[in-house]
């Protein structure tokens, strides 16, 4: 009743895995029982609750194993956004006298908006700049740290360009200076291996629906000993750090997605790398196309390009009409397509940022789909480029647009007797 089926798309292709991913079959299968018989509340003492509680334990362990950490360090939330909010606001409330925060200019809107909120609370925020290749200036980071720095929040990999930040080095600096470090790993989990046993990150946020799990659930890794105040108070769940009855079906989904990632991650990574190479070599052969961040270390599933003379909006709509789903990098819930905020923060012009396309693939993407995407992309670009050469001048002339109908007064009088022309058929 709620899901539409369209008849106008023959063979739709989905290439927007960074926006969200479809569920893995095993994830769906594992979630269903908890939507039916496994409905118990994990906090209840009786048989229904016990069953639920044990499943919750197993899911928590699965996520912990993915990062090589302890179960007690994994906290479940409703989303990556909530995890980010909890990490940053929780650190702020735990240490209210430390009012300086450091983050980057290319973070996900969730991170950026929370920092805007911090500024409203009277905090000072330093936004580290990122260059055109996506690289972070580690000197800038080191020099920004002050005595009252509460938290450094740097993403693992960028949601638009796929560029991976040098988290090893960032950890080294944060540890040396004694500042808490939060990493938004939402776009990295499931794409590259993250071992928190070796990486001394204090807080890590992730979201299930970016790696074949369901929407509505995320997690926050909180290293033992890290001070954090809760965002959502309630019934004491998650060791009093996040109230609310645990949404078991979603959490189980996250757990299974984590299991799958643990087992298949490197195999997937290899396959995706090949697709990335195949796609990018074809795209770079097109005149005017540049792959952003090519020279940096990137996740294997993301390709961000800019293209001369063709606007993102036109590309997106035309590709959609051919059944191909991609993104321009900037997603806004009102549906407006604007220039890529990340590219602008990286120093690209507004024009370049409005000519960007993000193609992100996943484990269900085939070589044929990549080939078809490139074919349709070329057709669309060819048509749009030709069209733009004939675009009307957008400056408006308010005067009459057909002066041939303004005869001189005397002519008008002499032609007054002429009969009207034949009114023809309907259009």
């Amino acid at each position, binding site marked *: 009743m709620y899901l539409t089926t369209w008849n106008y798309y023959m063979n739709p292709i989905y290439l927007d895995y960074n926006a969200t991913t479809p569920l893995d079959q095993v994830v769906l299968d594992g979630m269903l029982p908890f939507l039916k018989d496994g409905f118990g509340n994990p906090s209840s003492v009786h048989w229904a609750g016990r069953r639920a509680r044990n499943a919750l334990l197993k899911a928590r362990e699965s996520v912990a194993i993915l990062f090589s950490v302890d179960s007690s360090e994994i906290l479940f939330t409703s989303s990556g956004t909530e995890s980010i909010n909890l990490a940053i606001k929780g650190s702020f409330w735990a240490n209210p006298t430390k009012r300086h925060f450091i983050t980057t200019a290319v973070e996900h809107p969730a991170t950026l908006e929370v920092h805007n909120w911090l500024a409203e609370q009277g905090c000072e925020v330093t936004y580290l700049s990122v260059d055109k290749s996506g690289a972070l200036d580690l000197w800038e980071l080191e020099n920004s740290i002050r005595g009252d720095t509460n938290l450094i929040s740097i993403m693992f990999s960028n949601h638009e360009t796929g560029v991976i930040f040098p988290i090893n080095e960032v950890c080294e600096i944060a540890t040396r200076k004694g500042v808490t470090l939060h990493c938004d790993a939402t776009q990295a989990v499931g794409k590259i291996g993250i071992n928190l046993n070796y990486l001394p990150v204090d807080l890590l946020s992730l979201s299930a629906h970016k790696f074949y799990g369901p929407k509505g659930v995320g997690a926050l890794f909180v290293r033992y000993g890290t001070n954090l105040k809760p965002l959502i108070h309630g019934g004491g769940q998650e060791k009093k750090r996040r109230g609310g009855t645990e949404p078991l079906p979603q959490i189980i989904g996250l757990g299974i997605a984590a299991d799958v990632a643990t087992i298949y991650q490197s195999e997937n990574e290899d396959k995706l790398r090949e697709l990335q190479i195949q796609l990018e070599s074809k795209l770079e052969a097109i005149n005017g196309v540049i792959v952003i961040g090519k020279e940096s270390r990137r996740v294997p599933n993301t390709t961000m390009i800019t293209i001369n003379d063709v606007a993102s909006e036109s590309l997106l709509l035309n590709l959609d009409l051919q059944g191909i789903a991609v993104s321009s990098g900037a997603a806004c819930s009102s549906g407006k397509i604007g220039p890529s905020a990340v590219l602008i923060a990286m120093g690209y012009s507004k024009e370049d940022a409005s000519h960007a396309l993000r193609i992100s693939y996943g484990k269900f993407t085939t070589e044929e789909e990549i080939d078809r995407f490139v074919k349709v992309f070329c057709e669309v670009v060819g048509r749009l480029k030709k069209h733009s050469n004939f675009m009307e001048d957008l400056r408006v002339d308010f005067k009459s647009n057909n002066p041939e109908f303004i005869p001189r007064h005397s002519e008008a009088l002499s032609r007054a007797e002429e009969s009207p*022309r034949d009114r023809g058929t309907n259009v």
Partner: protein
Amino acid sequence: MSGGVDSSVAAYLIKEAGYEAIGITMQVFDHSGDTKHRFGSCCGISDYDDARMVAEKLDIPFYLLDFEKPFHDLVIENFVQEYKKGRTPIPCVHCNTHVKFRQLYNKAKELGASWVATGHYAKLEKSSDDRFHLKKALDLNKDQSYFLFGLNQEQLSHTLFPLGNLTKPEVRDIARKLSLRTAEKDESVGICFVPDKDYAKFVEKKLPDVKNTKGEIVTTDGRVITQHQGIHNFTVGQRHGLGIATGSPLYVISIDPETNRVVVGNETEVLFTGLTAQDLNWLVDPSTIPEGELSCRVRYRAADINCNIESMDSSKLKITFSKPHRAVTPGQAVVFYYKDECVGGGWIESGHFS
């Protein structure tokens, strides 16, 4: 697709006729400042959702596209400037001429489309000499040809008006049969970007220097009656809101932006015998229209009256009415008809009395 019943049914008819339809809603105004939910104002956030859902029902692709900048530059700018000059604008004409049937058409071409179809009540016919003729809709009460006089042949050649031969009740009926959520939706009234109809306040917000530009309200023989707070608060023919209590009713006869004066008079003084118009657009050569059969309309809701062309050159047109007409307002459009065909129109410079 504005989210109203007319554009919803138009979309359905286009699809039924066998065209490959793509639904577009133009976002022309930034609603992020709205805290109240607006109904019947056209193009508010919930209207976009209505359009979206109708597109889903009709099984056609749907896009909400940003036209804020062109709309601001081509429609809203003109609107406030006209009020500043003491004129009463009709932004809907500029929206049609420059945004809907030009900017939107360019977008449509980018998407591979060949026509733009709207829910306007108007008829389009093609004659044997390949010329397009804009005619009044079947439903004369709803006829919107008045707002379309600014389109040229090229624009008309890629426009479709599916509702031209239907009455409003018939359109609602079709919507009901399709169970479209917009079937019982109220008509949107007034100008879409000023939902509370407080045009003076809108102009003041956009042009703050216009606020409290005091001036005089005078009679036709120059006698000063009282002060006013700005000429943008008035329109020719207006009776209320003059802030004057006199024996007989007084009407605005003219507005002079140079002296910042509003001239008022009694009922007989607000009758005009003709007008001067400029920036004309002719869809049909006016010299081919038989003497005495040209009629004109000086307001959307005014009746057609016969008129004669006194003089015409490349920029201005002077006409006289067959009988005096009330309230000819500078800034409004004068649209000409020959029988049921809209032959062209222009912008009223000033009304004449003789």
